[in-house]
């Protein structure tokens, strides 16, 4: 009848070494044991209530024992409720699964993560009696469901997880199907027409926002797992592109999850595992993607573009990185616009070319593939620099080249020398095509023709430029730059004020720097024209080149 039977007492007695317990004693002890246990549990329940809980823990029992001035049973206290298991064959018998642990395993196990600290989150539970539909509050359907009184189920205990907001939303069946379909197409049938349709749908459909976190997760997961599967990577980037195009989707909150995957596709060491995989194309595509994202969300996330450029520059300037990575970085930077190129690539162009040149030569690099890669990188550089110049030619048709040249030499602080250097170079070695000369000479001539007129503004610009060259901050630098360019133009063309006094100063400066940077300058120029001679011209707007021609 009672919970504690006579037999129970006998078993316990045996377990502690009392073999000769008389049945009478057991019979007498059993009810008392039960009574005491019940009493303790009753106190434990009181402690539980005062701890504002509805699940009894071992701690409560300990507290109850303390209340009664009994030594608590050490070793069982845990903040989590015990996990009971039902004994097989008995409907009302439960036990705590207490498995043996090897002490060695415990001592050798790495320290668990420190438990997260308690924090407080504030939100509106109701506003004038109406519950706002924010993530902290459960949706209306969930409320209706919960009122049925669902029982809490015991869950297997996992490692401590940082409890985030209880974001719950319900995905409609249609959306789930749609998501599954897209996933399937992306992973397996990325070459089909159907996939193209899917991309179009992703780019235009309006009701897809609830799926965005899932897509974000999917992309991040797949990219990190499948770096060797070129097709899949490309498909994923296309998906991102399409999602980005969709006007009804607000991508901002998920950018921080997406960007790492995208940048991976841009500057990863290997993308795809076959030679036939055209990972250059993927990198180009991704570069555009990055640029688009930066353009669209740069004003929302002020640190987005600086962070991206920092990453890319890092990849670009690290000589230990593979050439495809450099290529990706250059492409990425180039896609971000000529200003970025001017600020970040051009100053580093010369040292980089020194590294690249041996790779491009047959004697320097025997590996055909590597050489090809080097040429690819060269092409990318050419493209970047050319675009940058093109931009300038368009902007300042009157004074195109000195500007470009001076920018190139920013970090060398020899803005004033550049023009003369070029001139010297042109005069001394004539191994480059006439086109180049034509391209370069008119402004130079103009400069030399201007004589002192040109020297003064150049000098003043040199002073200003120092500050700009110091920081890589794209926005500030660029705006400063344009301002200076204007500065340069105005005094250069109109003002002769202070000509006399600055001229002497200028002359000495030119001289001092001229011999110091002599070698660098000539090498830069030689490599520059070697690389970009023909290419440069192709970026020059037609009217200009015609004029020069």
């Amino acid at each position, binding site marked *: *009848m*009672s919970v504690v039977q006579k037999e129970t007492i006998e078993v316990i007695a045996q377990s502690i070494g009392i073999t000769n317990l008389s049945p009478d004693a057991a019979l007498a002890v059993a*009810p*008392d044991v*039960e*009574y005491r246990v*019940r*009493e303790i549990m*009753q106190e434990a329940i*009181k*402690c539980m*209530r*005062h*701890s*504002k*809980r*509805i699940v009894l823990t071992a*701690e409560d029992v300990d*507290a109850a024992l*303390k*209340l*009664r*001035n*009994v*030594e608590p049973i050490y070793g069982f206290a845990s*903040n*989590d*409720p015990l996990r009971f298991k039902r004994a097989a064959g008995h409907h009302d018998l439960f036990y705590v699964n207490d498995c043996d642990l090897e002490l060695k395993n415990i001592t050798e196990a790495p320290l668990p993560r420190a*438990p*997260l*600290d*308690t*924090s*407080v*989150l*504030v*939100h*509106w*539970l*109701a*506003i*004038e*009696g*109406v*519950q706002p539909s*924010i993530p*902290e*509050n*459960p949706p209306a359907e*969930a409320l209706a469901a*919960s*009122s049925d009184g669902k029982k809490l*189920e*015991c*869950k297997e205990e996992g490692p*401590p997880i*940082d*409890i985030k907001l*209880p974001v*719950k939303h319900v995905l409609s069946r249609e959306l789930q199907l749609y998501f599954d379909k897209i996933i399937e197409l992306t992973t397996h049938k990325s070459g089909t027409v159907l996939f193209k349709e899917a991309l179009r749908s992703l780019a235009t459909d309006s009701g897809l926002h609830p799926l965005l976190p899932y897509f974000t997760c999917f992309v991040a997961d797949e990219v990190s797992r499948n770096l060797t599967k070129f097709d899949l990577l490309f498909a994923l980037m296309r998906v991102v592109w399409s999602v980005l195009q969709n006007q009804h989707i607000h991508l901002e909150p998920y950018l921080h999850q997406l960007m790492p995957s995208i940048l991976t596709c841009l500057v990863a060491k290997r993308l795809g595992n076959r030679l036939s995989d055209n990972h250059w194309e993927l990198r180009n595509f991704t570069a555009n993607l990055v640029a688009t994202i930066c353009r669209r969300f740069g004003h929302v996330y002020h640190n987005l573009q600086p962070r991206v450029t920092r990453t890319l520059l890092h990849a670009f300037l690290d000589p230990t990185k593979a050439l495809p990575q450099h290529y990706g970085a250059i492409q990425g930077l180039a896609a971000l616009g000529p200003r970025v190129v001017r600020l970040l690539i051009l100053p580093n162009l010369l040292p980089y070319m020194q590294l690249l040149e041996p790779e491009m030569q047959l004697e320097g690099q025997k590996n055909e593939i590597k050489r090809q890669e080097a040429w690819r990188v060269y092409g990318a550089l050419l493209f970047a620099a050319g675009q940058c110049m093109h931009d300038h030619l368009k902007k300042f048709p009157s004074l195109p080249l000195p500007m470009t040249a001076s920018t190139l030499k920013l970090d060398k602080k020899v803005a004033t020398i550049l023009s003369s250097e070029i001139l010297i170079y042109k005069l001394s070695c004539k191994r480059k095509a006439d086109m180049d000369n034509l391209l370069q000479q008119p402004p130079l001539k103009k400069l030399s023709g201007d004589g002192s007129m040109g020297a003064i503004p150049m000098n003043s610009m040199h002073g200003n430029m120092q500050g700009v060259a110091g920081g890589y901050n794209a926005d500030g630098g660029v705006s400063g730059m344009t301002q200076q360019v204007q500065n340069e133009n105005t005094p250069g063309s109109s003002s002769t004020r202070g000509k006399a006094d600055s001229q002497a100063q200028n002359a000495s400066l030119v001289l001092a720097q001229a011999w110091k940077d002599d070698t660098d300058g000539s090498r830069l120029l030689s490599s520059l024209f070697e690389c970009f001679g023909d290419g440069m011209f192709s970026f020059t707007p037609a009217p200009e080149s015609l004029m020069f021609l």
Partner: protein
Amino acid sequence: MDDELVDKVVLRYLKNKGFNDTELKSYEDKLIHSRTSSSPSPIDPQLSQLLLHFGSESESLPAQYQDGYSKLRSWAYGSLDLYKHELLRVLYPVFIHCFMDLVAKGYLQEARNFFNTFREDHEVMHQRDLQKLEGVLSPSHLEEMEFAHTLRQSKVNIKICQYAHGLLYKYLHNTQSITMLGVINEHIHFDPYPGQPSSIIDDSEAVTIVGGGQDAVNLINQKEIQWGVLEDSLEDRLEKTGGLLLESDKVDVENKEGENEETKKKSADGGKQAAPSKKAKKDKVNVAAGKPARPEAITTSIAPRVKPELSLPVMPIEVEQSILDDLRNRVQLSSASLPSVCFYTFLNTHNGLNCASISHDGALVAGGFSDSSLKVWDMSKRGQQTSNSGQSDQEAASNDNVLGTNIDKRPYTLFRGHSGPVYSASFSPLGDFILSSSADSTGMFFKSLWPPRTASCSALGIPFLTYSSINIMIAVRLWSTNLNANLVCYKGHNYPVWDVQFSPFGHYFASCSHDRTARVWSMDRVQPLRIMAGHLSDVDCVRWHVNCNYIATGSSDKTVRLWDIQTGECVRIFIGHRSMILSLAMSPDGRYMASGDEDGTIMMWDLATGRCITPLVGHTSCVWTLAFSGEGSLLASGSADCSVKLWDVNSSTKTTKSEEKNSDTKLILQFSRRNLLFGAGVFSKPS
């Protein structure tokens, strides 16, 4: 013939009682002698029959109980519907006393059988009592167990209409169920009243045991109490000035309110957390006993004014001003215009959060943890942080905390000092002090004094004597939020202090404990000013009356008591709950009190009469917290079933508007002076 019969019966009885043969012989002789000497007395044939009946049945006493009870039960269930519920009410006391009689007489196995046969009848109403009684397995347990002991000592009071009363006795006599009659006569006190039987609702009185019996309760509840609000309170003053307010001013105020709500909404939509802190600077102070500030409120004129019996602390002028400002800007709440609720969710508590408290302006939130720590979050500071730097910085800050690199960067202030679970925390009205109570034990020795050797102490009604000779000190601690330090440690309670509460004007506070007392203290003395003793079990919660002249205590003995601070006497006993009282709240006009229990029932009491106005049923689990709105028109309740419910007080109907939230257990609710409802709770992992 008759005499012989009587002799036979007496002898058999004596034999049953264990008299030995020689004694019996002597008695027999005596009997014979007396019979011969005196003339045979006329014996009522009915009586002899009864005696015979008694004698013959006594062979199997357990069976007699079992039969008697089952017959009574079937009779009661078969009785007229009109009187049925009244008669059924009788069954429960009869049942438990039958059981205890059987245990006391040593028929343990039979007692168990009896208990298990009929327990289902009472499972719904008295589950917890049955669980307690279930453990009684020997006569000594009856003596020792508090609950059983009180049951045996006191009579149960049952109100029953005269007709039903008559029916019952007629039945008992007719069927000659002497055992049942004995039980009923011994343990039940009937309180017959003329007229029709009462409604079914208030039938729970039958079970609640009160020391001293029902008469004492009635006596206590007839005492006069001054339930009105304090005279010359801020509300009064506001009213006077409020009357001078021009209509345009009022409109202005209304507009302001509107704006206020607007901004609230905006900030809520933006998910901003700075909203409460914005107010923080404005109303950093005392709560005054709220009461409808507007002249149009009806109750205002009715509530009488009383003088304070305690010398109350003086409020600084600027504080008063800001309170008046708040009261003027208070949003009027009713069932039509529900309040906004700002909720503080505790994350990552690892099941350790025992209690929470919110200062009156909502700027400070305190949590008491089972690891003995008390943590205070300053929301006004955090709001600044978040508004400046956004989420990423916040994340960075939290990472720092995990790494423990910089202690100062903790988002909260940690108060360490307790050495046991912190069970309660209370902010002073001005928010500059916190009281916390815990199961502190300094120098506790685990002597194996338990189970107590002598049951005599508990039999004497001094149950704790056996244990309390051991050096245990349980402390209530006072902390300063300005200095971030422990100021005072109040020792007095011998057992865990379950609840502590500042008076509405500060300075004084009340605590209640497992030692069955509630105590009133002032901040400047380490000894209690008053000790309120009388509850029969743990005192679980304590609240101040708005006029500071009374405190109410809720207890595990299922009663709520109201105590006079000045005399320390119990002035009201509220009987009606069926389980442990977990929460109390006093209406701002001092007229009503609400109490919530373990089962989820909330009862609204009229302090003057001591009667329950209406039970509010809706929650399915423990009601952790109750709060009246500033003008007393709404009652908010928070429960373990993860919901907040709002009840309309004035209409006294059960019109509820419930707002639920799935993942949080509500620990505390509190209305600000402007009638913004603050809540705090623990996020529990969804399964």
